[in-house]
């Protein structure tokens, strides 16, 4: 199908786009790369009355270091982030996760920030943002506020951003010495959304884990932090048994979800099979084990 009718507005700047969203009201939607929104429009899963296009607003596509943060602007394409040497060296988890998003022709247009704002429970980038404790800058006609990733994701495709707020940028903490990061996922076909995936950042000092963050996708209505797994690892001198125990703990506290609940996250591939929760949970455990093991190796802390 084709998109339903909407009125189209080009944001000349991010502030202008925010003013347009305010004026047009809650039936307006922001358009970034369109790689989630356009399939939804074509499938008539969304029928916004107005679209506000952020695509040509200047100065928003930056990928730059700002002190201890790597800042990704709202219109920075996934392909640009993937190919950035800065991202690879400063936030390796983001670089590794973005490679798993869809296929190159989609990453040529899709934005990193748009994927995070879209907040799919199975998507790589919201999960990576959660593991990295990313900070989101929300801009509206009222001004600017900053929200941490954990407070940003509030449910299926739902965030703490109001309809008239734009995620102007996302800031990721830069890794330091002794930190290893890894993304691991399993998907049924190359380029599909994962059944489940895990993003891990671990800091090792003198053979002991002094900092650890683990986020998983595919097992809830949003990406979740695996707090019990983190607790099992923190302060330990990691060996394969500890890692396996942490992986087992990573899904133990989650509530099983019905298939209908998970089906909503398979978009835009409507006909794709929807793996059941038990399968997703077991895949999630393996991905946690793999990502933790790789992150430890990269941190130089595994024997």
């Amino acid at each position, binding site marked *: 199908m084709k998109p339903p009718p909407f009125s189209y507005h080009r944001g000349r700047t991010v502030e202008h786009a925010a003013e347009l969203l305010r004026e047009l009201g809650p039936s307006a939607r922001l358009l970034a790369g369109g790689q989630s929104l356009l399939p939804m429009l*074509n499938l008539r899963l969304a029928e916004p009355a107005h679209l506000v296009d952020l695509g040509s607003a200047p100065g928003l596509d930056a990928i730059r270091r700002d002190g201890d943060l790597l800042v990704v602007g709202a219109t920075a394409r996934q392909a640009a982030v993937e190919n950035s040497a800065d991202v690879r060296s400063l936030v390796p988890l983001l670089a590794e996760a973005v490679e798993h998003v869809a296929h190159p022709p989609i990453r040529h*247009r899709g934005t990193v920030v748009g994927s995070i704002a879209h907040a799919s429970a199975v998507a790589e980038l919201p999960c990576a943002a959660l593991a990295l404790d990313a900070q989101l800058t929300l801009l509206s006609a009222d001004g600017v506020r900053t929200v941490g990733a954990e407070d940003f994701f509030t449910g299926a495709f739902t965030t703490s951003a109001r309809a008239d707020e734009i995620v102007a940028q996302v800031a990721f903490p830069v890794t330091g010495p002794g930190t290893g990061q890894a993304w691991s996922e399993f998907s049924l076909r190359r380029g599909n959304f994962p059944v489940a995936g895990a993003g891990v950042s671990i800091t090792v000092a003198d053979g002991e884990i002094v900092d650890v963050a683990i986020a998983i996708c595919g097992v809830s209505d949003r990406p979740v932090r695996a707090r019990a797994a983190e607790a099992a690892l923190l302060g330990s001198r990691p060996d394969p048994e500890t890692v396996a125990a942490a992986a087992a703990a990573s899904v133990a506290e989650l509530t099983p979800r019905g298939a209908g609940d998970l089906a909503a996250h398979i978009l835009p591939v409507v006909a794709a099979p929807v793996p059941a929760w038990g399968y997703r949970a077991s895949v999630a455990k393996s991905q946690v084990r793999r990502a933790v093991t790789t992150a430890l190796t990269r941190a130089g802390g595994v024997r």
Partner: protein
Amino acid sequence: MTATHEPATGVDEIDTDPAALHPITITVNGTTHRLAVEGRRLLVDVLRQDLRLTGTHTGCDQGVCGVCTVRLDGATVRSCITLAVQADGADVRTIEGVAPDTRTLHPVQQAFWEKQGLQCGFCTPGMVLRVQEILEQNPCPTRAQVREGISSNLCRCTGYQFIVDAAVEAAERMAEGS
């Protein structure tokens, strides 16, 4: 004269008519077109219906299959999930712009022909454009790298082996030619 008191708005007058036409300029295969399109007009429909360039196909309309692939400022994109207004100012290449002239095929097209890289041909325009991009980025790919690269495009005839053969053959020809 009566003073009119407009409510103070931060933006200029907003036209909320969905049928409003937006002027765009796109260069397709070297020819510049000035068009007026509705906001919801897809790039693939501008190419196929307005410009009559029906080599770009349309299949799933949701970004999954890749038959609508075109190159936008050099990069492959799905024209079914790209609005025409988003392509304003862009340089677009379609399959019609791949061959150097009407009598000569591009080496990638020639290799598809010789290696039977097409059966029904429905996926072929997208496959050729994607293979062209893959070879530009990596002039000497392994079969596995080609397979990975074309995983963005579906072939309903499932002729993937021959498409990979064609890509490898094209890489060899282009290496000889350069």
